[in-house]
């Protein structure tokens, strides 16, 4: 395992995108940074600019307005950068699957590295997902 990969997995800066979610997943994501879970222990930080991001966290069903913006944000991120889909909406469009406004699930639009199901997913589930992703990256995909 190279030093680069090790440093990358020890300090993940997360850019959080809400692509038309109901805010429930977003609230659960913010729970990760509260004293109860405190993922800053593992070097995970929420950052404001996508240029600093190592992971893009996407919540919500992607509607026609947010899809082009999502692609733009993904192109703006410096590589290597992983995409994490959080919540049932981002995974499979959930209850909006027949909506006129929601065209495709997230993994048809961007290369998704990690799926975290749930409506909303529990913070424990997200931490579990992060651990699985980190072990996957460390083993060299």
């Amino acid at each position, binding site marked *: 395992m190279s*030093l*680069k990969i090790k*440093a*990358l997995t*020890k*300090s993940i800066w997360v850019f959080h995108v809400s692509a038309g979610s109901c805010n429930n997943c977003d609230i659960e994501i913010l729970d990760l940074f*509260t*004293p109860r879970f*405190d993922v*800053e*222990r*593992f*070097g995970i930080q929420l*950052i*404001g*600019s996508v*240029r*600093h991001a*190592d992971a893009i966290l996407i919540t919500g069903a992607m509607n026609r307005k947010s899809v082009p913006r999502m692609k733009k944000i993904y192109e*703006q991120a*410096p*590589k*290597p950068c992983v995409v994490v889909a959080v919540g049932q909406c981002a995974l499979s469009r959930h209850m909006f699957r027949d909506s006129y406004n929601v065209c495709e699930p997230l993994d048809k639009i961007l290369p998704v590295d990690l799926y975290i199901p749930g409506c909303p997913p529990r913070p424990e589930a997200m931490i579990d997902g992060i651990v699985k992703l980190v072990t996957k990256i460390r083993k060299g995909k």
Partner: protein
Amino acid sequence: MTLLFNYLIFPGLLFSAVIGLLAGWFDRKLSARVQFRVGPPWHQNFTDIIKLLGKETIYPAQSKFTFLFSPYLGFLSAGLVATILGMNLRSSASGFNGDLIVVIYLMLIPAIAMILGASASRNPLASVGASRELKLILAYELPFVLSIVALIIKCGGSIQLGKILELQALGASNIASWSGALAFIVCFFCMQAKLGYPPFDIAEADQELMCGTLIEYSGLPLAVFKLTKAVMLYILPVFLIILFMGKDTSLLFMVLKYIGLLFFIVLVKNTNPRVRIDQALGFFWKVPTFMAVASVILALVGQ
């Protein structure tokens, strides 16, 4: 050769960056403890820097040179300040006449570099951040220089750091007098603004400007900016210790004083909300400027 070693390794760039990154960890850990969290491990800031070195660097096509050059400008001048301060601490005869003035100017350059880089990035949020940083410089530079003028008057007009240290070693620390104490409080506020810490983190407001001046930076230049911030977190408290608390500069007392100052910086950072730019300007030109003028007058009458 010794000059190069001093600049690059020992009191200069490498040493100050390492101490600054450790101080940055202290800041994060203490902030976490204030918020009843656990906080990151001690090597977290080093890991961040190493990670940033391995990331892709994105730059605007139209202004590649200025965008990529400005981080180094700030980092190298901050390293120069660290060298001058460290050499003066080692032996007070190694400075030159007027190095206090040089240090004041050099400590401004990281902020200028930040403005330069932000303006070169062609991002609207970055330009808002740059304009705020510029106004903040206007705000804090006046009381900062005035309080240092008070100190120079108190030390009999000497503008050499080594002389100021010697005077304090023979007599009492400057902070023990009325004018010195007032000037120290003013300098403490200005230090908070120079570091870009709350309540004066207006230029890099995470929530409204998304890192403001640094928004377009990624990879290596961002790492250099982070290192510059770390070096600033080392040089500013040390500068204040030299000017105001230079009675005993043995290693143990230096470390204790440095950690004490850092503790207060982090506490102020964690207990104050961000002010608006007009509030910051109003604050600096009213309260600390008045206090600095009072300190100059006190120094003139010999208090």
